[in-house]
């Protein structure tokens, strides 16, 4: 007979509405046997009582519905972001606050490389916070003139490089006529490459592989460590090309006895016709294991708001920038919806701008009439600018939304003053409106765009503070309980997984976030600062301190 372990805890917040709190949880075969009092659970018979969590708070393992394993890959590079950020090994890196500090940090990293030619790469640079001061190749030449250097911006759409990198890519010349390669006064590229296409010639020389969408093995392992540190036990990899080699690697790594997170990769739609896309995803779905859930599609409809590439409805961008770009043709989107509904495959669609959201709503409605599917849960990802009418329509259509709560903190001020203006900035990621409209809702980090950390994401949705400390859109704040629901059951629901994870109740996976403090007892402003001890995943215990 299988062993039963009963864990005591200071408090168990179950997210099971029939029984919201418990003092003990019994685990058998990696699943929850029950949550209640010790007396109640003892009725299951022989068991071991484990008090290691006696002073901890247990919650269901957090579910992150929009992240990318790329976050793990990027940590092999030098962190250059403005905000302090904790790496997979638990070291917190100070934010880089000036170009001098950037150069200093890169020099330190370069010194550890030994020879003088190995490429050096960094990530998450965000000059927006440095008064938009531009980093030049000469700045990076101060680090090295002999090794190529490339620093990816937080947006993922701009890269700064040094002279050596430009030379190796054949771009160190005058006469380049390309809006994405700004030139210095001397007529040579100033060292900024704006857009993935112009990064491509340089990427291989500065250790940025082309296919950043797919996880590499080291990245997947580092990603899992971040999950443990943040209490996350189920997480999406929301746009992967899922090349055959990648899938083999992911199956192998997630199949190891001590891999601590359930990964849900969605197949990126580009590169296959809608017909082939469905066939490929159905093939992938059959390869799924408990810890690698394949078989869903990610479509990207438009770009980003701060990059002015999101598709907005009237009156467009606040600063007068032209409307953004479509990454899928409306007809193609429609065909994917029709075929996916017919095949019973779920589609998550990235829509940042409200026009992109509107397009999805308009295309899904007739597709649903053609192929009725009462429980499709097609999900609008980001859906940052949706208004109340759109949320109501999404609810009527049976859609879910996953709102980008973290965005508000990191770029809210920018949206207020520059991109969409005060009115729409105030209603961005309108969690209150979404819940009131009855649309199932999750909230997300989009790691690596912002750091993985469901409690931070909950904090952002509850407080709606921007980086400058303003409350932006106080009417759209949600309660702590609602936010905790969103990072557990809410996100699980968007993946059709809420029957397996997202709460601590009989039959579900024994997936727990182990916390040092009670998020329902602290001040809402302190949610993000609750220390995470680690996780329990499928009954296996992972202490952050042991990673």
């Amino acid at each position, binding site marked *: 007979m299988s062993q039963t372990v009963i864990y005591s805890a200071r408090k168990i917040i179950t997210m099971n509405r029939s029984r919201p709190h418990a003092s003990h949880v019994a685990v058998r075969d990696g699943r929850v046997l029950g949550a209640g009092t010790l007396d109640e659970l003892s009725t299951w018979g022989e068991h071991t009582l484990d008090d290691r969590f006696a002073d901890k708070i247990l919650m269901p393992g957090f579910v992150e519905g929009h992240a990318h394993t790329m976050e793990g890959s990027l940590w092999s590079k030098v962190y250059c972001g403005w905000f302090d950020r904790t790496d997979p090994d638990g070291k917190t890196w100070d934010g880089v606050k000036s170009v001098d500090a950037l150069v200093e940090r890169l020099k330190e990293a370069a010194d550890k490389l030994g020879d003088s030619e190995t490429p050096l790469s960094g990530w998450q640079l965000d000059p927006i916070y440095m008064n938009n001061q531009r980093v030049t190749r000469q700045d990076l030449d101060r680090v090295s003139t002999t090794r190529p250097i490339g620093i990816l911006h937080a947006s993922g759409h701009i890269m700064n490089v040094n002279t050596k990198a430009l030379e190796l890519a054949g771009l160190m010349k005058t006469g380049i006529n390309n809006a994405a390669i700004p030139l210095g006064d001397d007529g040579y590229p100033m060292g900024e490459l704006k857009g*993935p296409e112009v990064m*491509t*010639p340089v990427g291989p020389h500065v250790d940025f592989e*082309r296919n950043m969408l797919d996880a590499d093995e080291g990245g997947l392992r580092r990603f899992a460590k971040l999950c443990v540190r943040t209490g996350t036990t189920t997480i999406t990899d929301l746009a992967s090309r899922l090349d055959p080699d990648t899938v083999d690697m992911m199956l192998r790594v997630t199949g190891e006895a001590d891999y601590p997170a359930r990964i849900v990769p969605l197949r990126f739609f*580009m590169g296959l*016709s809608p017909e082939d896309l469905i066939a490929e995803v159905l093939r992938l779905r059959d390869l799924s294991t408990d810890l690698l859930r394949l078989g869903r599609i990610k479509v990207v409809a438009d770009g980003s708001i701060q990059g002015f590439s999101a598709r907005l409805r009237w009156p467009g961008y606040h600063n007068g920038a032209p409307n953004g*770009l479509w990454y899928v*043709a409306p007809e*193609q989107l429609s065909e994917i919806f029709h075929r996916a509904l017919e095949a019973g495959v779920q589609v998550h669609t990235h829509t940042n701008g409200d*026009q992109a959201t509107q397009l999805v709503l308009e295309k899904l409605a007739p597709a649903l009439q053609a192929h009725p599917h009462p429980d499709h849960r097609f999900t609008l990802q980001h859906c940052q600018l949706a208004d109340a009418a759109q949320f109501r329509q999404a609810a009527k259509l049976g859609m879910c939304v996953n709102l980008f709560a973290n965005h508000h903190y990191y770029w809210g001020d920018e949206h207020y003053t520059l991109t969409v203006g005060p009115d729409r900035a105030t209603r961005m990621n309108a969690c209150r409106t979404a819940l009131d409209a009855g649309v199932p809702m999750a909230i997300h980090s989009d790691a690596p765009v912002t750091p993985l950390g469901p409690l931070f994401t909950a904090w952002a949705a509850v407080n709606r503070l921007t980086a400058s400390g303003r409350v932006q859109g106080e009417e759209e704040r949600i309660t702590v309980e609602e936010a905790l629901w969103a990072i557990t059951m809410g996100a699980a629901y968007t993946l059709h997984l809420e029957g397996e994870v997202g709460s601590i109740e009989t039959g579900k996976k024994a997936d727990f976030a182990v916390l040092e403090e009670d998020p329902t007892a602290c001040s809402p402003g302190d949610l993000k600062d609750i220390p995470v001890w680690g996780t329990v995943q499928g009954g296996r215990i992972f202490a952050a301190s042991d990673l």
Partner: protein
Amino acid sequence: MGALPVTIVSGYLGAGKTTLVNQMLRQADGAKIAVLVNEFGELPIDEDLIEARDDELISIAGGCICCSFGSDLAAALKQMAEYQPRPDHIVIEASGVAMPGAIAQTVDLIPELRVEGICVLADSLNIRKMSGDEYIGDTIERQLSDADLILLSKADLVDQADLEVLQDWLAEHWPCARVVTAVQGQVPNAVLLGRFAGGETRSAGQFADDKYQSLAVRLETPVDARKLAQRLAEPSLGLVRAKGFVRDISGRPALIQLAGQRTEVTFPEKPGAAGLVCIGLKGRIDPRALQELGLGIS
């Protein structure tokens, strides 16, 4: 070895890109053309042209190939630039929502390649309606703004009066792009890709198509080749294409290549004989204006 010419074929869904590309392959006439498509969707290449296919490559009669580039065009271009046997020409069939100007900038970054021209297809039947579409109207207009040549597809399905109204509308909004019609994708490769012998005056009249006229011109005295190229690109001259050698004021032979509004002047190490071949729509090309530029018509 000169840079490999790249033609970008753009246009919204249903504008006729696939038909055009297949017709182009049918008249490849020995040229090894590499076609890059977004994805191997439904019939990117007519079945009877296909010799073999695998996941990444379709081999086409006459040494042509077709590859899909998915989400990584730059990588596919790089691969094509190094492909053996080396293609004579690359044609990118852009996705319906892609901006051809942005694609051209990508091509420009690869030293082995040069943008030969941007051809944007517009469906005669519904381009005006589409340009007013809430969702994709501005996308279509931006694509047309990037065009060197606008190809009006399905021109046989609208009557002459409507076609003229449409052409006036295009000329009003995109005055610099040259507009030609394409029925069933029938556009000579000389017009579409600039594939014609341009350096020899005796090739005048080589061009047998009842819609187009070609003129061979010569210039006896040295000129500022770049300025001349700019003049040739002026819409009033009615030229769709021009190619050939003139003697530049610097004393060097200059190769002028014109694709609609796009001009390119280079100074090849092994120049051909002096002389330019100009192609325009019959009745639109203006020999007198050419003569006023000092160009003697052979």
